[in-house]
């Protein structure tokens, strides 16, 4: 069974009948899917949690379990919650179908299978799963630059800070603000401003694999630099700064851009480190970069720890 193969969706079939499994395998042979068959509800739940397939074909009439209960369990568990479930039922009772659909199944198929119908419903459910996955990914991405968005940053930073504190590991944050961005926009128009953002973002995104580049605001970016002290993160920021400074446009040879950078790590913080304080420390450093010439990297100075932090 292949994992993480975007071309072959994974389908898990839970049915206690060997007859049915043989049929499924034969009927779905020409669909480009990886089919995994199990005979019991318990094994089905275990495999679903471990492999998180794209689609589950669930027999409601399992011999030793209540299929509806299994469906409810799949939907209650955050790990398996988003897996599409088609339930298979020999029952013609409308109430059973309603019940299954209300419990969160996306579709149902009657037993015995109508071949073409089964294949079509499987394809339809897999199509929908693909779209849902793209959608949830997009919800965490910034539309213009493709970087992680602010919501993702907040969530991720929280996790990184608590992880770093738990393991006693270093953690740094870089805040980056494009210099004189507003006047660029005013002079050359917003479409060009967008281009500038995209160029800067692609530079920030092409850093080290473990760094997390996010769009923080209109012309502001944040880069989470795990497992690094401020000095090391400042080196990363300096590389970004230099590359941004070198950006040119063929059509506008006179236009040059630059960015200012503020860098802080957890030791720059007074008292108990929190994500908010880390951001505030980097922000203070960024402010100093802006007010002392721009186009530079400044590391937060613990001595300058702001007394009042905006809530």
């Amino acid at each position, binding site marked *: 069974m292949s994992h993480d193969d975007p071309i072959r969706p994974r389908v898990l079939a839970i049915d206690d009948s060997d*007859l049915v499994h*043989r049929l499924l395998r034969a009927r779905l*042979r020409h669909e480009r899917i990886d089919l995994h068959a199990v005979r019991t509800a318990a094994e089905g739940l275990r495999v679903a949690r471990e492999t998180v397939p794209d689609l589950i074909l669930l027999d409601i009439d399992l011999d030793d379990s209540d299929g509806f209960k299994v469906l409810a369990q799949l939907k209650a568990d955050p790990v398996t919650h988003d897996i599409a479930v088609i339930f298979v039922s020999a029952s013609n009772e409308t109430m059973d179908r309603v019940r299954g659909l209300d419990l969160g199944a996306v579709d149902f198929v009657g*037993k015995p299978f109508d071949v073409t119908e089964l294949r079509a419903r499987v394809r339809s459910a897999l199509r929908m799963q693909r779209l849902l996955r793209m959608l949830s990914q997009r919800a965490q991405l910034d539309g213009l630059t493709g970087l992680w968005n602010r919501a993702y940053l907040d969530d991720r930073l929280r996790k990184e800070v608590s992880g770093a504190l738990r393991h006693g590991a270093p953690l740094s944050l870089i805040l980056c603000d494009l210099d004189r961005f507003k006047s660029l926009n005013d002079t050359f128009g917003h479409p060009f401003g967008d281009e500038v953002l995209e160029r800067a973002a692609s530079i920030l995104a092409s850093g080290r694999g473990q760094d997390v580049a996010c769009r923080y605001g209109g012309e502001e970016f944040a880069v989470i630099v795990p497992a690094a002290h401020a000095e090391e993160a400042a080196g990363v920021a300096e590389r970004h700064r230099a590359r941004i400074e070198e950006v040119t446009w063929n059509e506008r040879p006179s236009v040059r851009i630059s960015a200012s950078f503020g860098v802080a790590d957890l030791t720059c913080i007074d008292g108990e480190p929190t994500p908010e304080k880390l951001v505030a420390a980097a922000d203070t450093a960024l402010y100093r970069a802006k007010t002392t010439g721009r186009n530079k990297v400044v590391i937060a100075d613990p001595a300058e720890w702001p007394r009042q932090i905006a809530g």
Partner: protein
Amino acid sequence: MDSNPDAEARPPLHSAYENDPDLRDLVVMFVDELDRRVDAIREAYLAEDAATLQRISHQLKGAAGGYGFDPIGDAAARLEYELLHDEAELSALAERVEDLISCCRSAVPPTDA
């Protein structure tokens, strides 16, 4: 309960999918295993084991049609219905059981190409 030799002989029952290349081998397997299922049905009936009878008929109801044997599936469905709605009188099921058994016996594998 023995099958009545004078009972109306059923015509051979072919699978609707016997010429389907995807299913052909499975149909052969299915027909092959029907003997075993018939024995199990008879045994369960004679032992008045309603639970087993119900399980077998339920399985056949759900699968036989997929192998192209709708009549077997229908006969199994009728037996299961009786079992679920009239459990008290097992002998009243004799007709349904006989029906299913003779239906199964009439099934024939695909003729060799």
